[in-house]
């Protein structure tokens, strides 16, 4: 047997992956940061403007409303998605008839293209032709503007995001549950722990890492929501339902303001990293305590 453990051999084997990583991740990020300090319209030569784009952001009302909407989507996702996915995973990991089919059914939205998810939900939530308001109207109630109004769209986007991502997060929890050592569960049962006590004092603590991974995925996912808003409302009316990425897209490609668009991209990236790291640091402190 030949061991390829010398440093140059390791570097050689890592090189293709590093190259791909650099081309598709490092270069775009460096490119974005570079142009975020410029007045660039995508065609002419970029002009260095220092931190002007970042300063402009602090006075940009649409940026702040997009940030607020993104936080609403994130809040809805964190409050609903993690507990719901975990509880469903617990339920479906038990001896239930048709659990496999149910898991597949719940996972299905995760493999549907987000643009199609948006289209499906337009026909459900549209205030005029949507199924929900059609049903409410048949009961004699006037349904609200779930999408396209001035207030409910971010909540609706959050709910659709939960629907779309539930199966994926559930699968991670399900895999974690299946990997729990059986002997610990059996020992707790022999000690007389009820199902609730097993869940509260054995399962949840042992799945702490899985909770961490899922939460980070949900946080970064919420900061990347774009297609849902794009299809549901296009960010309207007058940007009231824009989230950060849809606003960045608008600024960059519709307004041809690449410099400001790149600054927005950098801020979105930093927000995702900061919130994720803050959460991980919180987890680490709690674990130490």
């Amino acid at each position: 047997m030949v061991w390829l453990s010398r440093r140059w051999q390791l570097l050689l084997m890592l090189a293709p992956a590093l190259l791909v990583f650099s081309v598709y991740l490092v270069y775009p990020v460096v490119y974005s940061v570079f142009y975020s300090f410029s007045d660039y319209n995508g065609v002419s030569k970029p002009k260095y403007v220092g931190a002007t784009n970042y300063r402009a952001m602090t006075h940009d009302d649409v940026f702040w409303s997009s940030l607020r909407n993104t936080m609403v989507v994130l809040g809805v996702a964190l409050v609903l998605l993690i507990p719901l996915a975990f509880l469903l995973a617990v339920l479906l990991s038990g001896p239930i008839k048709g659990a496999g089919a149910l898991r597949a059914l719940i996972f299905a939205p995760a493999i549907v293209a987000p643009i199609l998810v948006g289209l499906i939900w337009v026909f459900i939530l549209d205030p005029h032709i949507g199924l929900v308001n059609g049903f409410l109207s048949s009961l004699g109630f006037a349904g609200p503007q779930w999408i396209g109004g001035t207030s409910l769209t971010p909540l609706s986007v959050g709910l659709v995001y939960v629907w779309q991502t539930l199966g994926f997060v559930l699968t991670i929890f399900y895999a974690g549950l299946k990997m729990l050592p059986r002997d610990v569960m059996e020992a707790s049962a022999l000690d007389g722990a009820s199902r609730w006590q097993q869940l509260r004092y054995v399962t949840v603590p042992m799945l702490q890492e899985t909770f961490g991974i899922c939460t980070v995925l949900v946080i970064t996912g919420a900061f990347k929501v774009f297609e849902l808003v794009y299809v549901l409302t296009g960010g309207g009316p007058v940007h009231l339902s824009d989230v950060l990425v849809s606003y960045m897209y608008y600024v960059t490609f519709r307004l041809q303001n690449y410099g400001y668009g790149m600054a927005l991209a950098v801020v979105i990236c930093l927000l995702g990293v900061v919130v994720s790291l803050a959460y991980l640091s919180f987890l680490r402190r709690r674990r130490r305590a």
Partner: protein
Amino acid sequence: MATGLGRRVGAHNLRRLSSLRVVGAAAAAVLVASTLVACGSDTGTAGNGGGSGTITLSMQNANVEKSDPATFQIVQAFKKKYPDIKVNLVGQPVEQHEQQMTIAAQSHTLPDVFWVYNSLAQTMVKNGNLLDLTSILSGGQLTAKFPPSMLAGYRSGSTQYGVPYQALVTGLYYNKKILAKYNLALPTTFDELVQVAKALHSHGVTTISQGANQSSFSVWAFLTMLDRFGWEQKQAGLLDGSVSYNNDDFKRLYGHIEELAKAGAFPSNMTTQNYQQAVDAFTSGKAAMLDSGVWAAGTIQDSSVGTDVGFWPGPTFSDGVGEQKLVMNAPSAPLVVSADVKKNKKKLDAVTKFLQFYYSDAGQQILVDNAQTPVTTYKPTGAAAQKPVFASVLAALSAPGWTSPQAQPDLVVSAEASNAMYESIYGVMQGVLSPAKALKMVAPTIKPA
């Protein structure tokens, strides 16, 4: 992936996991930033690398044959006339197309001939990306074939960088049957339009079908109204900064739009529906009017309401400014040619022949056959011009006493300003902006050059 994660959880390798998670989180987050650049990784255009007898024509429709049959048929007829010249016709949706042309300009891979919004064309011409078409047009005696207004908007100094792709004839299509059903006459003034809107709203019928989702530009009839409130007289001042968009005349117009919205003229779901859905609502008889242009004449003609539709340039205003009998018949976005074409004599010759064919009488007749008005002075003939919907558009254009503005207002300002104009109009229609706020939103976006 899930199984792998589960195994790791089972192993309780906490320290390793923490660092993995940090890297994972950071990698996932940086993907957001990389989205922009990834978008530009493939222009989808053929560039200039083809044989010198090959030209690439890039258009703003994903399916040119279906969505823009006039251009498709012109290309087919051209290929028949010049079998030695190959035309590579490509297309993508308008937003994607604009992105790709922007990125292609950066990488000097622009297609030979392409459609582009005038605001982007102006940036490209300043950057030296576009060919001066003066000699091509004068060589084929084409310059004289265009009404002067059709070329003026695409000139920068002495450089003629573009030619109008099609004529931009816009207004309101109306369904005669719906109006007759509720004993309503076609309005001529704005006050009459408000009365019609109130009457139709009381019967649960949408007056003007509009769709803002991903198509906020679909406010053509209202852009013509800006001309009825003195846009053309104010244009020079607006562009040099001596006149503000936030002026009393435009304030009155936006007040009227608000009045129309309060009369229930617009669909309640105009934020979520797109332009195509607005067209569908009209062609399925669910709306009395449609804000659109001549490009929709063929679709409307072939729909179930085709025999009951007429074309109306829009209302006149008793408190308007200047000429009220205005019908929008201005140059649409231009066709432009990459500056790199001149580097290859054979290609330049092929492009010259293509443009000369496009604007010849034979080319313009193909436009007419596909329910498009000619952009040259060519007088249309044939059966297509007799089809009721298209004929009503032609009748509006030649109605005695009616004239056309030089350009549609949104096409003479920057992309930022035109988008602000669209959003301000839709904002008032949707009731989320007051006229004063809407005007304040647009004013700072029109900056002196």
